[in-house]
């Protein structure tokens, strides 16, 4: 059999499936995904406004060294988090019409960025908690057992979430790297 005839036959066989796709609820899904993306984008701004605004308001209403230190340190944390977030996402923009190979590269960069963000999040959380507890202790002279229990529970929950998320992202990265290796091996 001639090669081109073979390909032609395969084309006919391949295209013999003329099934028309069924689309249901597409518009709802687009709206839902757009809303989710907006919420995710707004979350950072919301945290900045609520926490940063609250500490700033406290310092302005009651301008003592302790409240000013609280506001200044909170804004320092927020600034560091924003700088990290922006620099970490710098290379992870989405080229909608990029090639599959470029998209694979981008997905790997995003996965690595997510892993960096997890490490950064864990460190920032530890530093923030240390500062907050020190600040509360300095202000009230003691740490109540209720507060310690609450902080411990929050920390355990946060740690469990980070570990689960990190595991997921590591699996993603391994999968994508294998996919990229397969693509390179075919070259």
């Amino acid at each position, binding site marked *: 059999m001639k*090669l081109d005839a*073979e*390909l032609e036959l*395969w*084309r*006919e*066989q*391949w*295209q*013999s*499936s*003329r*099934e*028309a*796709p*069924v*689309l*249901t609820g*597409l*518009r709802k*899904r*687009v709206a839902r*995904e757009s809303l989710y993306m907006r919420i995710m984008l707004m979350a950072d701004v919301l945290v900045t406004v609520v926490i940063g605004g609250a500490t700033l308001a406290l310092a302005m209403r009651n301008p003592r060294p302790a409240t000013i230190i609280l506001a200044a340190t909170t804004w320092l944390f927020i600034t560091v988090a924003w700088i990290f977030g922006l620099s970490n996402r710098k290379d992870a923009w989405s080229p*909608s*019409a*990029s*090639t*599959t*190979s*470029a*998209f*694979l590269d981008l*997905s790997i960069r995003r996965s690595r960025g997510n892993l960096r963000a997890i490490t950064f999040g864990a460190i920032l959380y530890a530093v923030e908690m240390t500062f907050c507890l020190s600040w509360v202790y300095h202000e009230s002279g003691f740490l109540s057992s209720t507060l310690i229990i609450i902080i411990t529970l929050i920390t355990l929950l946060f740690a469990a979430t980070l570990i689960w998320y990190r595991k997921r992202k590591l*699996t*993603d990265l391994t*999968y*994508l790297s*294998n*996919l990229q290796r*397969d*693509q390179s*091996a*075919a*070259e």
Partner: protein
Amino acid sequence: MNLSTAASFEAADAEPVVEQQLNRLLTENGPALLRLAASYTNTTSDRDDLFQDIAIALWKALPRFRGESSERTFLFRVAHNRAIDYLRRHRAPTIPIDPDAPLRDSRLNPEAGLAQEQQGERLRQAIHRLPLPYRQVITLTLEEMSYSEIAAILGVTETNVGVRLNRARQLLRQLLENHK
């Protein structure tokens, strides 16, 4: 609901131009995109899920399409990228070739009633067994894409497309021969 009715998805506040463009693209290329989705998935419901994902990705990507490539190239780029993302999310195996595993008897598939459809079903099963880089190139070739279009979609050189296609054909021939 079929595509023509569904694709008009009552877009009251959608961009009318984008909506029309998407409608047209899905009407013209719906079966091809469905075949593409099938080549990345194992079941009909997964295929349909992926097709929905592709349609959403197109909806979002179309406003940024500036005609740098043909519409069809753009469409298949978006579709392949979304399919890669689908594989990642579902941790789908990229299926190493196993020429010894039997192809399913397409005669058992009541949907594949006609001889050509049976052959088509057998071919699709064999293609599904190919490693992903070869599967991508052969499916795009079977959708009548040129080397340069395939290279532009996958981000490889035209020479590499040729190399992959040759290898894909060899593997495919071997699979089909082993299970005549």
